[in-house]
């Protein structure tokens, strides 16, 4: 069934524990709008996005945040081991009508707390324009 929980004492700061690439399209934005209840039209209408001065239709920040933690969840084998997750939205992800966008996630060990049985995993999340999430940190329980 699910993979074994990673052992804390086998980890070292800086170590890459997971990485993945996600191709998203306009359909992904429509799906996320429905699932989350966020129907802001800047996430599906080019004219409205451009009308408020944006470079195009944007992915929901919360979609990017939701996707970015998934490689860590897969590494943990259990979404319930995420005990704290925070990000800064530093740059929007523009999703083209035809080509969509690609979000790349690299997850590294930031800090280890063997007493608490916890690790801080730092995410580097990029799209075409560069880094899209700042200070993206996931605290996980490995106990």
């Amino acid at each position, binding site marked *: *069934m*699910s993979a074994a929980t990673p052992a804390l004492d086998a980890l070292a700061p800086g170590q890459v524990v997971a990485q993945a690439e*996600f191709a998203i399209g306009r359909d*992904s934005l429509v*799906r*996320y709008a*429905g*699932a*989350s*209840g*966020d129907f802001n039209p800047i996430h599906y209408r080019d004219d409205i996005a451009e009308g*408020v001065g944006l470079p195009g239709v944007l992915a929901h*920040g*919360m*979609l990017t*945040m*939701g*996707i970015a*933690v*998934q490689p860590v*969840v*897969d590494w943990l*084998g*259990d*979404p*319930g081991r*995420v*005990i*704290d*997750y*925070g*990000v*800064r*939205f530093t740059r929007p992800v523009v999703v083209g009508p035809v080509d969509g966008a690609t979000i790349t996630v690299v997850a590294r060990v930031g800090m280890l707390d063997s007493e608490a049985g916890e690790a801080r995993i730092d995410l580097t999340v990029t799209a075409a324009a560069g880094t899209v999430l700042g200070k993206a940190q*996931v605290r996980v329980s490995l106990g």
Partner: protein
Amino acid sequence: MNPELQGRIFAPTAPYLVGREKVREFARAVFATSPLNFDPAAARAAGYGDLVAPPTFPVVVQESTLAQLLAEPDAGIDFSRVVHGEQKFTYTRPIVAGDELTATLSITSIKTLGGNAMVTAESSIADAAGDHVVTAVSTLVVRGDA
């Protein structure tokens, strides 16, 4: 943007019942593949009562608290000027299908910088027994008149 909003605590939202299909729908939307999000037998084998929601699922419950804030007559927030600056979730335990969740919003900080305002909105989410499940903190930037 009304600075007197700082410290205001809103009425708890109506209970939100976490449905199994909603967990699956949300999980698919964030590209989740964990069996614990989709298969109740896998979730039970891992020690949970039912499907486990993805880490950012509380946003679904938090949504109604942000609606409370925007609807507050004296808040003076124009939604079209709101940009999501930061987001954080701090868990006591994971959300599982079957949970009945209530969110209580408090405005913990309002800072003005230039013409913009930075609002920190904290939604404390508890289960039917009143026990804390997760706190969702959003920092919203409200752009002033250009």
